[in-house]
């Protein structure tokens, strides 16, 4: 017997607050992608370097990031580092945790994309007098980014959804955090979380759509 009565009005009144939270969510996701992409690129170069220590470091990162729960990664950034006297705010810890995860997945994504580009491209560049780094930067990298672009979009969506794990480290300004606090005060669990879910859904869809439009404009070859 269902005896729950919906109170949507109360929930909708909180919409502006939730949308502010959504902005924080988007901000963390974008920053974590920017950091993740930069680190993934560095990890990719480490793996290509032929230096055992560097490539071992990169492989270790990728293995841990991809084979342990994202929740633990965020926990480690907040409570784990805290044990060593490094105290990150919930915001920073969440950002660091997701960026760590993003970097691992994106580095693996880049590695696959690199395999799709024949060695002869680098040879052609070197034959024109380019240094290895120039050949990578101007010939291999742009092609690699194209191949890696759509999988990276998936990671962006995943990053948005992962931000909701921030509630476990006390994050209360993002969409999940705001929703959780509203819920705790009102117990209108279904209404608040349903609205939040719709907002997450719309953000994720918008990101995918924008990425498609961007790709169509950027990659015309």
């Amino acid at each position, binding site marked *: 017997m269902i005896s729950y009565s919906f109170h949507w009005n109360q929930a909708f009144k909180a919409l502006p607050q939730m949308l502010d939270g959504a902005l924080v969510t988007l901000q963390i996701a974008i920053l974590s992608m920017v950091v993740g992409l930069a680190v993934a690129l560095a990890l990719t170069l480490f793996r290509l370097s032929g230096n055992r220590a560097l490539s071992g470091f990169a492989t270790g990162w990728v293995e841990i990031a991809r084979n342990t729960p994202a929740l633990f990664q965020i926990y480690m950034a907040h409570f784990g580092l805290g044990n060593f006297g490094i105290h990150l705010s919930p915001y920073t810890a969440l950002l660091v945790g997701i960026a760590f995860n993003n970097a691992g997945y994106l580095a693996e994504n880049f590695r696959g994309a690199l395999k799709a580009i024949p060695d002869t491209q680098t*040879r052609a560049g*070197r*034959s024109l007098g*380019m240094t290895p780094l120039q050949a990578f930067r101007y010939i291999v990298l742009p092609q690699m980014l194209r191949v890696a672009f759509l999988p990276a979009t998936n990671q962006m969506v995943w990053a948005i959804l992962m931000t909701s794990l921030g509630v476990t480290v006390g994050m209360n300004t993002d969409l999940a955090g705001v929703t959780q606090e509203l819920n705790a005060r009102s117990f209108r669990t279904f209404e608040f979380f349903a609205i939040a879910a719709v907002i997450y859904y719309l953000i994720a869809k918008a990101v995918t759509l924008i990425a498609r439009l961007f790709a169509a404009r950027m990659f*015309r*070859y």
Partner: protein
Amino acid sequence: MIEIENVRKSFGQLEVLKGINLTVKKGEVLTIIGGSGSGKSTLLTCINGLETIDAGRIVVDGTDVHAKGTDLNKLRRKLGIVFQQFNAFPHLTVLENVMLAPVKVLGQSKAEAEAMAVKQLSHVGLADKLKVYPSRMSGGQQQRMAIARALAMSPAYMLFDEVTSALDPQLVGEVLDTLRMLASEGMTMICVTHEMKFAREVSDRVAFFHKGVMAEIAPPEELFDAPKDPELQTFLAATH
């Protein structure tokens, strides 16, 4: 001048160059013929330092290619090379393909590089393809673009590694015409090729490679009409 002295090169157990001696003077057109696995393509990639050598030396205009202190990136500016696979950069337009190295390697301004690129692309008959991506072009057009790309660096020497071997038969002619034009303009060229008629026409000298050895080298009429080496005689009989 390119001086090749007693060059040896092995891939694992297989010795692909067994002591090659060869000198190519400025303005000369040398073609190298021979069966597959004869070492002819390997020699080209040794000349521009893409491959190392095990013994001997290769000297380009006084610079020992494989010596320790040699700046290969700088040396390669004067050695244009075109490969069997066209190696077009697919993410760049034809114009951008040709401009890339002059801008990034030679430090030319965009305007300077564009003027040069347009000139070279017009030269190989691609003036109407500047804004096109390579995937939109035929193999013959892509190969001519690769030639223009090498020429835009103003190289002193051009190395051609079986540049028509990956082309459909009807597209071979346009690329060979481009090579003929360069030869007639006095470009110093080393062409590894299977096109015997072309070799006879454009070469000052033709070299025949067999199993890592330069078995014979002579002006084309001599090499084709009065071959001395028995392997060469067999090879020519088979290709006719």
